[in-house]
C-alpha cells in the first residue's frame, strides 16, 4: 500500500467540502475536513496533514490570519483556495507563507496538478527524491527522458514523458483523456486531440519494443489505464 498524503480541507461550505474530499479520495489522497473553526490552529497541529487547502472566508478567524499564526508554528504546505481573484490578495497570501493560490471555481484537474506540484516541491511526497520511476522491470528516468529495460534504452519525447509519468502515477487507475490533456497543457504542451492519440500510440510502440505489449489499455469512452 502506498503512503497516502493527508490533505486537510478548511472551508465553510459543506457541499464544497464533501465534493472536494470526494475528488481527493478518488485520487489517492486522504481527505480530512476541519470541523471546529474555533480551534482551527490546534486542530491542524493535532492532525498534522501533509497539505492544507485553505479558504480565506472562514468563520471565526480569517484565512489569512490563520495562515499567519500557522506559519509561526509549522511549515505545512498551504494552498489558498479562494473566490477572490486579485493579484493583491495573491501577493498578500504568498507573503504570509502560502505555497500556492487558486481561484474558485477551479478546474478539478488543475487543482490536483497543483496539489501534486506543491507536495513535490515541499519534498514530502512519497517519491519526491526519486528521479527514477519504475514500471515492472522498466526504469523510467524523468530528467533524462529515457525508459530502459535490461540493456535497451529508448528516448521519449517531452509529450511522451508527461503522459507516461502521469499514467505511472495513476497506476492501475483509469486516466481520462481530459486529465492527460490537462497535464500536457499544464506543461505548456498545447496539443490537440489527434496529437494526443498519436503520442499515446507512439508511447505504446516504445513500450512494446521493450516487451510490454498492451501495457496501456484503452477503456472505451473513459480513458486509458496502465497496468
Amino acid at each position, binding site marked *: 500500500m502506498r503512503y497516502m498524503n493527508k490533505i486537510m480541507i478548511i472551508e465553510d461550505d459543506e457541499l464544497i467540502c464533501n465534493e472536494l474530499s470526494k475528488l481527493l479520495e478518488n485520487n489517492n489522497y486522504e481527505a480530512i475536513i476541519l470541523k471546529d473553526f474555533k480551534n482551527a490552529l490546534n486542530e491542524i497541529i493535532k492532525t498534522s496533514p501533509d497539505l492544507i487547502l485553505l479558504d480565506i472566508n472562514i468563520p471565526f478567524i480569517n484565512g489569512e490570519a490563520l495562515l499567519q499564526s500557522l506559519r509561526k508554528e509549522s511549515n505545512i504546505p498551504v494552498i489558498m483556495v479562494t473566490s477572490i481573484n486579485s*493579484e493583491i490578495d495573491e501577493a498578500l497570501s504568498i507573503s504570509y507563507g502560502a505555497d500556492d493560490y487558486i481561484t474558485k471555481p477551479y478546474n478539478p484537474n488543475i487543482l490536483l496538478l497543483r496539489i501534486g506540484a506543491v507536495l513535490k516541491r515541499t519534498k514530502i511526497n512519497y517519491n519526491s527524491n526519486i528521479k527514477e520511476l519504475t514500471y515492472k522491470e522498466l526504469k523510467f528516468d524523468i530528467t533524462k527522458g529515457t525508459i530502459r529495460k535490461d540493456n535497451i534504452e529508448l528516448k521519449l519525447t517531452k509529450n511522451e514523458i508527461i503522459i507516461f509519468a502521469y499514467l505511472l502515477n495513476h497506476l492501475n487507475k483509469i486516466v481520462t483523456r481530459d486529465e492527460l490533456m490537462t497535464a500536457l497543457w499544464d506543461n505548456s504542451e498545447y496539443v490537440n486531440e489527434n496529437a494526443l492519440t498519436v503520442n499515446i500510440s507512439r508511447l505504446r510502440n516504445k513500450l512494446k519494443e521493450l516487451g510490454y505489449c498492451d501495457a496501456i489499455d484503452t477503456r472505451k469512452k473513459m480513458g486509458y489505464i496502465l497496468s
Partner: protein
Amino acid sequence: MKFSKYFKDNLYKFLIFIICYGINLLIFFAFKVDKSVIISSSFIYLICFLFILLIPYYKKRNFYTNLLLNTQALDKSYLVLETLTKPEFYERELLYQALYEINKSMNENVSRIEESLQDFKEYIEMWIHEVKIPLATLVLMSNNHKEQFDKKTKLQLKRLEDYVDQVLYYARSENAEKDYLIKETDLSKVIKNVGLKNMDDLLENKIDYIVENVQYKVLTDSKWLEFILEQIVNNSIKYKRNIDNSYIKISVQDEFDKTILKIEDNGIGIKESDLKQVFDKSFTGENGRNTNKSTGMGLFIAKNMCEKLGHKIAIESKENEYTKVYITFAKNKYYDVLK
C-alpha cells in the same frame, strides 16, 4: 471680454450722459454763457464720462478674462474657484460667493454618488464571491459524477463563469480606485493559464492553440492580463471559420523599449467598417448580430483595463482571413537598473 458688448450693456449710461449733457447745453444757451466756457466744460464732461466707462471695464476685463482662461486651461474646470484671488469688489465678491456655494453643493453631490457607486461595487464583489461558491460546487460535482453531467454541462458552467468574471472586472476597471498590482509577470504563465481555462472549449471547437516563443517578462497585473487575453481568445473561439485548420497563434515580439504580445487567429475576421468601433461599449457589429453571442462588453472592458495598466491594445483584421490583436507593454528602464 469684448468692449462692444460691454458698451452695449452700458448703453444706458451713455444715454443718461447725452440727456444730461443736452439739458446742460440748453441751460448754457439760456444763460448765454460764453462759447469758450461751453467748449471747456463739454471737454471735462467727456473726459469724466470716458473714465466712468473705461475704468470699470479694464478692471472687470482682467477679472473675467482670468476666470475664462483658467476655466479653459484646467482639465477639471470646476476647480476654477481655487485659482481666483479673493476679489476686493463687492460685485465680484457676490459672484465668488455664489461660485463657492455651487461648488460645495456639487462636491456633496459627487461624493454622495461616489459613495453609492463604491457601495454598489462592494456589493457586486461580494455577490461574485458568493455566486462562485455554488459555481465551484457545480464544477466539482460535474467532475465527481461524470455519469450525471456530460461535457456540455462543463462548457455551460464555463460560460457562466466567464460572464461572472466579466462583471467582476467591469466593476473593477470602472472604479476610480486602484485595484491592481503591477509586478513582473511571466507571459508564458499567463498564456498557459488562459489556455488551460479554455482548453475544453478549444478542443471542442477543434481550434489549435499555438504558442510560440513567449518566454518574456512584462510589467503588469497577471490577473488583469489573464482576463484581457481571455476576452480575445474567447472572441477567436466564438468567431471561428468553418475550416479544418482553425488556430489561435500567440507570439511575442521583443523590442528595445517595448514588448508586443500578438494574438492571431484565422477566423471570420471583422468588417473594415466595424473595426474602428470594436472597443466601444456595447458595440456588437455585424459579427455579433449574426451570431447573437455577443454582449459587446468584452473588448470594451479589455481596452479600459489596458489603459489603466498603461498598455496599448490594437486590432487588425481582414474579413474571412484573420484577426490580429496586439498588446504593447512598455519596458521600464528604471526597473531594470534596480534589478
